């Protein structure tokens, strides 16, 4: 019995317990920070235990990589603006997936010379590298779209799904061939290249508003890749941590899909943006009511309760801090202000909550869609900022709408609806929003941040009278 046999499994088990508790405590804001600490302790135990294993003798490269990883990671963590959270998340999925893929590749070539590539190991290894490589390029593409290095618009072409599925089928076929006879070394680079290509192809037709689902799905893949590595290395800690990450991403993706009333395959292969050309022409000529900042401020000031519905437009305009100022002023004037958050508002799950928390909006003022909807008919003013499809009543009334059946925040039930919007251009789904033409709707045209500033100024003036 060596130290490794007795102590190591216990240390790894402690690390796994740390991860499980971390997610458990993250469940509520009161215990969440404790969750991070216990997760860190788990990771520390796992790393130290691994460094002490008798196979690990060569430390210099490991330490250099530790140093470099920390040197890049720490500045990212502290300098990154909160509006860049979706990009950072996509980037970290890319890093994690690439790490898995590289380890899988190394294990494969090591196994060729040293043996050990049994069927089971090869199956796990192929899954690990397939998911790793495709998640790497897919996440980098998602990163590019979120960072707006690439166009956010979905790009579609004829035969796209056929091509995508074809590439995937060939990659999977080569994977099976490698499982059957691992010594066909020519195939491995080809396999890796196809997996990388598939990742790129997968994201090309994805538009910005589908990002929450896609990011969650990529999160899941990165986790499953890590779990597959656990099978290759016969390491339970990797299996547990990978399974936790895999199921987490998967559940989030399901929640996002439900919030859009769409299926996975529809998100991945449905190419939502195609509808843009046909739908946009429909409502151009219809008249809308618009209002100035002064009028808007007066309406808000005389309301008893206001529900603010933010969307991606708020994030783009970085309007959350101005929104907080408005919230403060109105609250001080006795107006009850709440925020209603649709699950797919923004570019990743929980995006709006983080931005509003950053602006110091207390989180008990943030309401979920299902909780706010029954109360919407008692609301004086619904103020929509940079959201469109998630408040489109067409989802409930028009069975032919592209978003038919999607659960929405029922802003139309409020006595007055105000919409801050740059122009009358339709939103991501390319669907005209009948909400804008209603008699109780006021359009506030302008940049969200600039318009909110004017409202805040007007409210300030009202307060002095």
């Amino acid at each position, binding site marked *: 019995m060596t130290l490794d046999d007795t102590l190591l499994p216990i240390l790894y088990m402690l690390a796994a317990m740390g991860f499980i508790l971390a997610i458990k405590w993250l469940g509520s804001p009161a215990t969440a920070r404790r969750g991070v600490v216990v997760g860190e302790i788990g990771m520390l135990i796992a790393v130290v235990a691994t460094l002490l294993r008798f196979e690990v003798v060569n430390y210099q490269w490991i330490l250099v990589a530790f140093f470099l990883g920390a040197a890049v990671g720490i500045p990212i963590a502290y300098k990154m603006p909160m509006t860049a959270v979706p990009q950072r*998340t996509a980037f*970290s999925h890319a890093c994690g997936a690439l790490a898995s893929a590289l380890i899988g590749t190394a294990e494969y070539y090591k196994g060729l010379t040293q043996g050990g590539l049994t069927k089971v190991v090869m199956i796990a290894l192929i899954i690990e590298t397939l998911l790793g490589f495709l998640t790497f390029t897919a996440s980098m593409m998602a990163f590019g779209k979120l960072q707006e290095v690439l166009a956010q618009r979905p790009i579609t072409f004829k035969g796209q799904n056929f091509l995508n599925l074809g590439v995937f089928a060939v990659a999977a076929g080569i994977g099976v061939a490698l499982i059957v006879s691992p010594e066909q070394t020519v195939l491995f680079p080809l396999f890796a290249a196809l997996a990388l290509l598939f990742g790129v192809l997968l994201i090309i037709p994805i538009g910005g508003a589908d990002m929450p689902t896609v990011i969650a799905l990529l999160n899941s893949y990165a986790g499953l890749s890590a779990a597959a590595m656990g099978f290759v290395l016969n390491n339970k800690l990797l299996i547990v941590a990978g399974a936790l*990450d895999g199921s987490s991403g998967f559940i989030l993706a399901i929640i996002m899909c439900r919030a859009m009333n769409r299926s996975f395959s529809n998100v991945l292969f449905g190419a939502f943006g195609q509808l843009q050309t046909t739908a946009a022409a429909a409502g151009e000529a219809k008249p809308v009511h618009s209002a100035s900042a002064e009028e808007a401020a007066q309406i808000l000031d005389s309301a008893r309760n206001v529900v603010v519905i933010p969307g991606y437009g708020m994030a783009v305009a970085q309007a959350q801090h101005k929104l907080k100022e408005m919230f403060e002023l109105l609250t001080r004037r006795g107006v009850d202000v709440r925020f209603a958050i649709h699950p797919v508002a923004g570019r990743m799950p929980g995006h709006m*909550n983080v931005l509003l928390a950053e602006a110091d909006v207390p989180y*008990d003022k943030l309401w979920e869609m299902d909780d706010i909807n029954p109360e919407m008919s008692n609301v004086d003013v619904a103020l929509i900022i940079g959201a469109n499809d998630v408040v489109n009543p067409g989802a409930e009334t028009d069975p032919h709408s592209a978003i038919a059946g999607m659960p929405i925040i029922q802003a139309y039930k409020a006595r007055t609806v105000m919409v801050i919007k740059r122009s009358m251009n339709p939103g991501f789904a390319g669907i005209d929003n009948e909400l804008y033409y209603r008699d109780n709707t006021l359009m506030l045209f302008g940049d969200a941040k600039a318009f909110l500033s004017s409202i805040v100024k007007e409210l300030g003036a009202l307060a002095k009278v």
Partner: protein
Amino acid sequence: MGTYEFDLWVFMLAAFLGFQLIRGVSPLLHTPLMSLTNAISAITVVGAILLTGEREASTLSRILGFSAVFLAVLNVVSGYLITDRMLKMFKKREPQKK
């Protein structure tokens, strides 16, 4: 029971545990949740260390392992720190201003 069978059981149970735990997470915290699980899945650093630190490792193993340690540590460090930075912002009600 073969080791892979045992591993499959572990995977299945951990996945179910994951489903149950994630369901309990408020949508309020979905973004921090994603960055935390991302940091946790950087546990691949264990595989990377084993590969890089081996006495007899080939140059290829060393290079790939080194890159993987770098990428995983990057995720561990930035993942935990950002999660904590985000969670610090979630406050119930701010101190009353006079």
